[in-house]
């Protein structure tokens, strides 16, 4: 049991013991999610604000449900409806939320580092729900949790992350968590989206632009969506060419070990990065990731609130 942090801003700075604490706590919450009464009183009387300056539906819903299941009160605050559109600064917006005694601020923001910035003046606990191309820590945690549940361990596994790495906060959070926990990480995709500089992040990381090589020996393949909205000039000629070079097709799937698991943070582009039959196949854990995401986010809120794992037995 190792958790003393006030905020969850990134996975880069988390130790293996801290990561393991979240994963173990999430396992207890997943068991609770399988009960008929899924609610626990851990955050009763606490207020959780979902501050989503960049639009997102699935992450917001997951955090919202996680907070509700912990008995917190939840406010959803999106950029479209907010004063941020009227020119109010993030700092002033957050001060206003804190004047309402918000205890947790879940921040999704298009600017990398926005949660770090917020944590410098916020009294509330800050949870990064995705900042620019920096990190998406709860997504990284739920991916690692899913791998550990399926494969029983992280250490020594070969994990291939395939797709848009350069602009992906999901990739960065996965990279840090996997490398810290001892997995070997292969990053694969077009050279414009998978620069070699990523190999300097950690000795356990390698980069390849050859899909066959990228898939060889993989225990886990995590597919990332091509983020058109973050590209300025198209990083590849066409979606068709991308699919032909890097799409996970049944024939490529046939070269993989039968134990391999296929992951995707969603939303998926069927027929682009992944063939439909693979997304729906037995090796796909895409929907399990969604379920696990809820447990992981409950664990994060619980731990930040000072909760101890033993308390969950009751």
């Amino acid at each position, binding site marked *: 049991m190792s958790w003393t942090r006030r905020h969850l801003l990134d996975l880069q700075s988390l130790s293996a013991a801290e990561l393991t604490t979240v994963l173990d706590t999430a396992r207890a919450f997943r068991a609770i999610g399988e009960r008929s009464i899924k609610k626990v009183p851990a955050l009763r009387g606490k207020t959780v604000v979902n501050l989503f300056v960049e639009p997102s539906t699935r992450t917001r819903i997951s955090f919202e449900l996680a907070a509700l299941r912990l008995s917190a009160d939840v406010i959803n605050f999106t950029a479209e409806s907010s004063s941020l559109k009227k020119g109010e*600064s993030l700092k002033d917006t957050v001060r206003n939320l804190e004047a309402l005694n918000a205890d947790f601020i879940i921040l999704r923001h298009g600017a990398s580092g926005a949660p770090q910035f917020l944590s410098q003046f916020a009294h509330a606990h800050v949870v990064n729900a995705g900042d620019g191309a920096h990190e998406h820590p709860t997504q990284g945690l739920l991916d690692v949790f899913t791998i550990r549940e399926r494969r029983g361990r992280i250490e020594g596994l070969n994990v291939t992350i395939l797709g848009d790495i350069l602009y992906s906060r999901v990739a960065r959070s996965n990279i840090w968590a996997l490398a810290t926990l001892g997995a070997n990480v292969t990053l694969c995709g077009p050279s414009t989206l998978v620069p070699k500089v990523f190999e300097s992040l950690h000795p356990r990381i390698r980069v390849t632009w050859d899909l066959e090589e990228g898939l060889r020996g993989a225990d886990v393949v995590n597919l990332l969506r091509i983020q058109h909205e973050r590209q300025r000039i198209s990083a590849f000629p066409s979606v068709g060419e991308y699919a032909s070079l890097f799409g996970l097709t049944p024939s490529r799937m046939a070269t993989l070990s039968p134990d391999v698991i296929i992951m995707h943070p969603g939303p998926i582009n069927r027929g682009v990065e992944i063939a439909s039959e693979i997304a729906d196949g037995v090796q796909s854990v895409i929907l399990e990731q969604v379920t696990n995401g809820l447990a992981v986010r409950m664990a994060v809120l619980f731990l930040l609130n000072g909760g101890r794992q033993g308390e969950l037995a009751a």
Partner: protein
Amino acid sequence: MSALLLRGGRVVDPASGLDQVSDVLIHDGKIAEIRPGILTPPGGEILEAAGRIVCPGLIDLHVHFREPGQTKKEDIHTGARCAARGGFTTVVCMPNTSPSIDNAGTVALIQERAKSAVVRVEVSGALTRSIAGEELAPIGSLAKAGVVALTDDGHCIQNNELMRRACEYARMFRLPVMDHCQDYGLVTDGVMHEGLHSTVLGLRGWPASGEEVIVARNILLAELTGTPIHCQHLSSAGSVRLLREARTRGVPISGEACPHHFTLTDAAIAGSEVFWKGDGSGIASEFFGGHALPSWPAYHTHFKMNPPLRSAADREAILQGLVDGTLTILASDHAPHTQSEKEVEFDDAPFGIVGLETELTLSLMALHHTGRLGLSALLAKYTVNPARLLNLSDGRGELKVGGPADVTVFDPDVEWTCDRADTASRSQNNPFHGWRLRGKPTATLVGGQFAWRP
């Protein structure tokens, strides 16, 4: 008018090569005599300068005083006071004000305000209308109004044909063309140096090649047109290499460096811990002694400027370029922004930091105290070199009997701790807050009058 005797300082005048302990007598705003053992004139004031350096008033040809239009950040009077506190007697204002300095009327407005400023404030005019990079500004009437240089600083003319014509046209008026070197296609919306740290932080990269492409372009156009082009605030190793080769061939091209680019690196944006452990470890051991290292979080916007802080290899190449004479001019790129403008998400913060009050100190630390460059060679980059580039023919930039008594006196060895609130500026966007620094001005004289003394 009374006389002033600067007594017993080490007088360093790069223009004449003078470097010896001597007295300097100032009379009627002019330098009357330079020699050891001058007797105190009757009724004259004495400034003891033993242990101090006495040199020509420093010139910073790259400052943003934000007037007209952005005076909540700075104005000509507050900016000039910063200059005086930093040891500067002449500064050149960049034209990216609001409206921009692209017409004689705005030049006249600044000149009028400058009359009551504590240092000499010169004006640079825009190369293109509204600094939009689309059509030539009225360069002839700007020249007539008295601008000392032309630049679109903050912006960069992307159209090579337009840049060529601007250079050719400027030649008629003997005005140097200065350029902020940035290729918009390569840089797009980059906010920090493209490298390992931008990858980890998930911030948009501003690649060094985005500067080097334009430096190469400027070398070719300086050759083609014969107009001297001065590359402003160079930040990358490649730029220094290109410039070195071109200058060897006699191309009329020059470059300047700013202290933040040869002191800090992009690691600073990953937070103080990363910086002090890595690229800052040499500075920590050399200058901080037992003093606490300042700390700052990752994504701190006081480390966001344009061009951005680059790698340790680039920092070293800039220092090398200063040492071997490839880079002939030092400047601050003093760029004040208010706290509320800087206290935002990194992507949204404006580029720039203040610099006038720390630049001499940081230059002394990186070049003089490390033994890399002699004091006279260093001071040339703040005095005679910018004076020559700007064609200042009134004796500024040197210590000459009969010339204007613009003189800076500084203590090269005094240690002090930088406090960003202790400033004459309207802004406090100073990345060196809490730093242990060595060397500080002790008096700044403009035309024989104290523009500043502690």
